């Protein structure tokens, strides 16, 4: 059985796995390259926030050679799945390069599926036929593969970025994927503590769609309605984890609805009515009112802290009443966000400033120029 059955069981079994965790992220706003060893080092300090049932990373700016191609990271448990998947890819995409993802098997990482990556762009005639943009096309393709091809899971689908995740402790996962061999301008990491064991690599964080990668701590109590809300917009929450909805909400609010990041954050962790009511500036009061009215089903409720990576930066956000920890720090052009200050101090012993962001207040780091 293994992967294929397990995954399809997951799809059918509507029970959700609550998970909690430790997070860390770093970005150079100048676009300077940071080695993958840095984020591993940071995650080591908060080892105890995970339980070895999932760890992962996302790095941005790691594939400069293929910066204009979608980098698909795919895991196959089932050789038949690979054939079927590659057939789909071949039909829909122009594949520039296809290779195994380099790994270094070591302690703590077992039962690795076959891991491959593909650098590709959609075939223009396909886009023309469907009259949709390349991003939407890729979202549909990823969802199609993930819901129909047995034993196959696309776990990274952005450009010039990649997600690396597995069942294991974060630091072991990082070494397994040889992250010290990569460098990027932004990294996020995650050590997972699921309350039961799917034992499935796809269940680890970050969750990704296009260049959105989300690492998440906490449980989203509003999951049910967030999921049904997203389903109205064509997102399929197949993985039954609340983190997935976070990635899709960002994708929808920012990419599809074009909201500025700060505003999207104000949807997800909306201010309380009591505070909106006493806002002095009528314009901002009107905006907040509208966001809450229109996006009431996108309010993410319950304890959470997330770090979301995207092609131009990274944002850290926690829930409206700060039920999960988040600490941020800056040093020169570097912004750090983590669940614990110690994870930052490990890789930046003397920050210029360290602070704990307020409830629902995003901390955003963005590239100043091009990389």
């Amino acid at each position, binding site marked *: 059985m293994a992967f294929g059955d397990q995954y399809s069981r997951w799809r059918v079994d509507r029970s959700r796995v609550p998970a909690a965790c430790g997070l860390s992220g770093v970005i150079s706003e100048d676009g300077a390259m940071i080695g993958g060893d840095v984020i591993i080092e940071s995650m080591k300090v*908060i080892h105890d926030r995970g339980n070895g049932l999932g760890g992962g990373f996302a790095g941005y700016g790691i594939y400069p050679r293929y910066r204009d191609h979608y980098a698909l990271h795919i895991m196959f448990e089932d050789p038949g799945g690979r054939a079927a998947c590659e057939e789909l890819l071949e039909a829909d995409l122009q594949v520039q390069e296809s290779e195994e993802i380099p790994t270094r098997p070591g302690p703590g990482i077992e039962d690795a599926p076959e891991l491959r990556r593909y650098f590709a762009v959609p075939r223009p005639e396909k886009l023309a036929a469907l009259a949709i943009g390349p991003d939407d096309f890729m979202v549909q393709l990823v969802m199609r593969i993930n819901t129909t091809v047995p034993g196959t899971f696309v776990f990274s689908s952005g450009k010039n970025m990649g997600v690396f995740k597995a069942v294991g402790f974060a630091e072991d996962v990082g070494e397994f994927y040889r992250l010290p061999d990569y460098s990027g301008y932004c990294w996020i990491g995650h050590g997972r503590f699921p309350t039961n064991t799917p034992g499935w690599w796809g269940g680890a964080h970050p969750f990704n769609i296009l260049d959105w990668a989300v690492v998440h701590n906490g449980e989203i109590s509003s999951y049910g309605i967030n999921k049904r809300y997203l389903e109205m917009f064509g997102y399929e929450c197949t993985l039954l984890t609340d983190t997935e909805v976070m990635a899709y909400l960002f994708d929808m609010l920012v990419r599809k609805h074009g909201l500025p990041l700060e505003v999207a954050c104000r949807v997800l962790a909306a201010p309380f009515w*009591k505070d909106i009511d*006493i806002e002095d500036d009528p314009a901002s009061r009107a905006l907040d009112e509208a966001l809450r009215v229109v996006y009431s089903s996108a309010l993410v409720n319950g304890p959470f802290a997330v770090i979301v990576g995207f092609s131009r930066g990274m944002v850290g956000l926690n829930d409206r009443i700060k039920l999960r920890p988040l*600490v941020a720090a800056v040093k020169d052009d570097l912004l750090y966000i983590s669940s*614990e200050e110690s994870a930052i*101090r*490990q890789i930046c012993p003397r920050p210029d400033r360290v602070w*704990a962001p*307020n409830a629902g207040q995003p901390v955003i780091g963005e590239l100043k120029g091009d990389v």
Partner: protein
Amino acid sequence: MPRAATNDRTELKSITLDAGGVYYKDLNSQVRGLIDEGYEEIVLQGVNGQRYIGDGLTQKVKIIIEGVPGNDLGAFMDGPTVIVNDNAQDGVGNTMNSGKIVVKGHAGDVLGYGMRGGRVFVLGDVGYRIGIHMKSFKDQVPVIVAGGRAGDFFGEYMAGGVLVLLGLELGDSPLVGSYVGTGMHGGAIFLRGEVCDHQLGSEVRVYPLEEEDRCQLEGLLAEFAEDTGADLSGVSLDDFVKLQPFSHRPYGNMYCY
């Protein structure tokens, strides 16, 4: 194994440990061992993220921490003095019974939860849910003084003890968040500055300071300045307001039988 070196710069029997990279379980058990050996002052160098330092200790020792200690610093602690020469994380002084914790930087959320005695002094800002469910008992009066600002739910469910917030170097940011003293049914909160009604929990009201409050505050501020090195020259007792519950039975009318 951390390196140990005995110090002879104080009259206390003192020792320095290098805690860099030592797992909390090993570090704390080593600290306990040293206390059993009779050391009265333990300096922990290179601390970063180790949890539970001082947890459950009942001896009147002094622990000096260089670096950022992990969560639950001084949980269930009953006696020691802990000095942190840097920032601290969440859960400082959780259910602490007696002793003192001095943090010379910032501290995180849920500080002094269920604290029943002793003191926690934080030079800088503190996070959300500070001093919630603090209670006093007999001659034990828990005290938290923070030099900076605080987040929401300051003193939630507070049943006793004293919370002081100084707001030194506030700039534009507010002194304290919302829901101050919500569910409060004992103890007192002293804030240096004004609070608006919408920030207060429905169980508390603002009162002017009585003479005995001024005395108490004066003593606490002197001790705070001494321990943290804070400059309180610009601080006047006239700037403080006191928050107290107006009922000890906030939920008396919620039921019928």
